[in-house]
């Protein structure tokens, strides 16, 4: 398991999230959403970023190069 800093757009704080190297980034993003849901939620398509670099939700954590204590942003995707 890899500890990463998860940030959900609309939230007020970064959260420590544990990611499995083999899971899809979409799964990790869902963990961020669950951890932040008391304060914020996003509907619709999502856009993900690792340390500011856009990544595809359907790639695995390992394929995307998500490393320990990276910053993972979960943002509103699609047309803004």
């Amino acid at each position, binding site marked *: 398991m890899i500890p990463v800093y998860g940030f959900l757009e609309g939230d007020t704080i*970064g959260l420590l999230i544990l990611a499995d190297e083999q899971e899809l980034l979409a799964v990790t993003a869902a963990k961020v959403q669950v951890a932040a849901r008391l304060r914020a939620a996003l509907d619709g398509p999502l856009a993900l970023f690792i340390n500011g670099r856009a990544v595809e939700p359907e790639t695995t954590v390992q394929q995307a190069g998500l490393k320990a204590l990276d*910053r993972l942003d979960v943002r509103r995707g699609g047309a803004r």
Partner: protein
Amino acid sequence: MAPDDPDDWIDLCRKLDWEFSYVSERDVFPEVQSGHPWLPASDWADWDEPFRTTYGRYVAQQQEKEASVRAVREAVGGLDDYRQLPAGWLNGLKLHAATLPLAEFAAVIGNLRAARFGRDGAWRGAALFAALDEMRHTQIPLLLMHELVRWDPQFDWTHKFFHTDNWVAIAARHLCDELLLASDAIEFAIATNFVFETGFTNLQFVGLSSLAHGVGDRMFDKMVNSIQTDETRHSQMGAPVLAKIVERDRPYAQYLLDKWFWRSWLLFAVVTGFSMDYLTPLPNRTSSFKEFMQEWVIEQFLQTLGRFGLERPWYWDTFLQGLDHYHHMVYASAYSYRSSVWFNPVLPGPDERAWLRAKYPDSWGDFDPIWERIAARWRESDPGNEFAVHGTAIVSFCDLCQMVLSNGTPRENTASVLDHEGRRYVFCSRPCRWIFEREPERYAGHKDVVKRVLAGEAPGNLLALVRESFGLRHETWGKDAFGGVYPWLQRDRA
């Protein structure tokens, strides 16, 4: 010379310096203690401050102040007087009470270093009086709050706070250890006497004193007024030191100013921002935290910069944006992790949120939906069911200020990751990262809460972390100040 008229002889005593014949001046005042830049005594000979106090005058004035505090305490400082204060205000009191006395005690050390290693006799004498001041600033809140412990054990944190590994205590110690215990005499004078006391305690003491008066907390009003009259005196040591450093090493003076303004701002935003915008009952609020900052800090700070020919800190725009966001970001985070603190936060209702929207028209639109969600969760939950309306994930912390990663805005958190000599660090903001990168050897070894968890030095389970590291138990950890029961919050079910 008339010995009963101190004005006739005071300067002979307070400017007591001499040339050394058995040791070098550099050995008596080593740079590591006296500070950078190292200047010969002749360069400091014109150092002066306006109070020019004698020990006799000092003792007489302080005795009067102590008698006045005691009189107010006997009149309105009893348990029954505190019981009548609003719940939100009492919790602001717990927040302030915890962060004040042991920080003041650390300031005794910093002032005593200046009393020994300050480069001019008058500076050293004034620092000695300041050290004595800080002793009473330690003792007064400890004395006043001790009375309340038997009624509410959260007041025990007045003394306990700094002795725990609570996340706020780690952040406060990280600041105070560097500011008050580790700084050399020059950095201490600029950072503590000038930036912290001249700049920020004006806000805290004048602003909060006014609020305390409005709420009816005459004891707190008296306490902060009594402390502020001391701060006013010993803050005067900062300007003459800054003037000298500006003259001899302007970039270093600018760096110290930039660094300590930022670090001080983060602490004050949380401690004072929470109290002014959330914990003070709405009818008693006179101004927002931002308005107080604009009136009491920014205007004065900019005038001072101009007087010394210094520039605004490079992060000034970031700071101004933070006035609209930072304490709101941290308060919403702290409310949703309130079991990790020793006071009970208040859920802002429709009236409070309308007031906040009026005071923060540029930012409140991003915060209102957050409070609406939290209120909605309370509507679905039983009164007092705290953990139904509480975060569960471990939160993350800045490797410089040790505060939660809550800088920037809800739309764009400003945290960033840095790799340095094989270790990974995270910072809440560009200024925190900049401070770290200027002196990494000073900060790199410190572990924030997350690093302690990952190293197995603290539990990874939130409840265990709260109990074992943060030093809280059910009786003392924070809960909603009203148990989630508010007149405006109608529950969906009976």
